[in-house]
C-alpha cells in the first residue's frame, strides 16, 4: 500500500524553510504579513494624519517627517501593504462568494493581485513620496 508510505513520510512539524508555497499561498500569506505591518505602524499613520490636519506648523512637521529617507522607506512599505491588503482582500471576498475557486482561476487572481498592487505601489510612491 503506497498510501501508508506517503502517510509515514509526511512531515509532522511543518518546516517553513522547506515548504514551497504555490503562488496563491504566497499571495495569501502576504495578506497576513501586510495586515500585521499596517497594524504595527498605525501609531505612525495616526500621528501623520493628525499632524497633517492640526495647523500650518504641524503640517510642515508632517512634511518634514514624511520627507525623511527612513520614513519614506517605511511609508513605501506601508503603501505596498495597504494596496496588497486591498487587492488581496477583494480576491478573498470573491472567493468567499465562490467566484474563481478553481485552481487555475485562483492562480490567475493571485497573479492579478500582484500585477495590480506592485505597479500601483510604484506609481503612487513616485507621485507621493519621491
Amino acid at each position, binding site marked *: 500500500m503506497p498510501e501508508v508510505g506517503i502517510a509515514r513520510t509526511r512531515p509532522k512539524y511543518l518546516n517553513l524553510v522547506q515548504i514551497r508555497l504555490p503562488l496563491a499561498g504566497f499571495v495569501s500569506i502576504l495578506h*497576513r504579513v501586510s*495586515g*500585521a505591518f*499596517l*497594524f504595527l505602524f*498605525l*501609531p505612525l499613520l*495616526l500621528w501623520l*494624519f*493628525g499632524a*497633517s*490636519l*492640526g495647523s*500650518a506648523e504641524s*503640517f510642515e512637521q508632517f512634511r518634514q517627517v514624511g520627507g525623511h529617507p527612513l520614513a519614506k522607506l517605511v511609508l513605501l512599505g506601508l503603501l505596498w501593504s495597504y494596496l496588497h491588503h*486591498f487587492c488581496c*482582500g*477583494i480576491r*478573498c*471576498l470573491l472567493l*468567499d462568494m465562490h467566484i474563481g475557486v478553481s485552481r487555475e482561476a485562483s492562480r490567475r487572481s493571485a497573479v492579478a493581485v500582484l500585477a495590480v498592487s506592485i505597479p500601483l505601489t510604484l506609481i503612487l510612491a513616485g507621485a507621493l513620496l519621491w
Partner: protein
Amino acid sequence: MVKRILVGAHYGFRDWLAQRITAVVMALYTVLFAVAAASVAGSGFEGWRALFASGFMRFATFVFFVALAWHAWIGVRDIFMDYIKPTGLRLALHVLVILVLVGYLGWAALILGRL
C-alpha cells in the same frame, strides 16, 4: 438523544462576517479618499484641512476608523490564535490589542473633533 450539529454552531461566524463588512466599508472609503485627496492635490494645508473639515468627510472618516479598529482586532486576534500557544500570554496580548485599538479610536476622534 440531543441532536446538536457541532459544525453548525456558527461560533466565530459573527466575527468572520464583521471582518468582511468592515473590509467593504474601508474599501469604499479608500475610493472616496483617493478621489477626494486627488481633488485637493496641490492646494496645500488649507485645501487638505478644508476637505476633512466638511461634515460628510468627518463622518465618513470616523466610520472608516471604527471599521479599521474592528477589522484589525479580528485580524490580529486570528494571528495570535494561530501562533501564540500559551493561553495566558495570548489573553494578555488580546487585552493589550483591544486597549491599544480603543486608544487609537479615541485619538482619531480627537483629530477629527479638533477640525
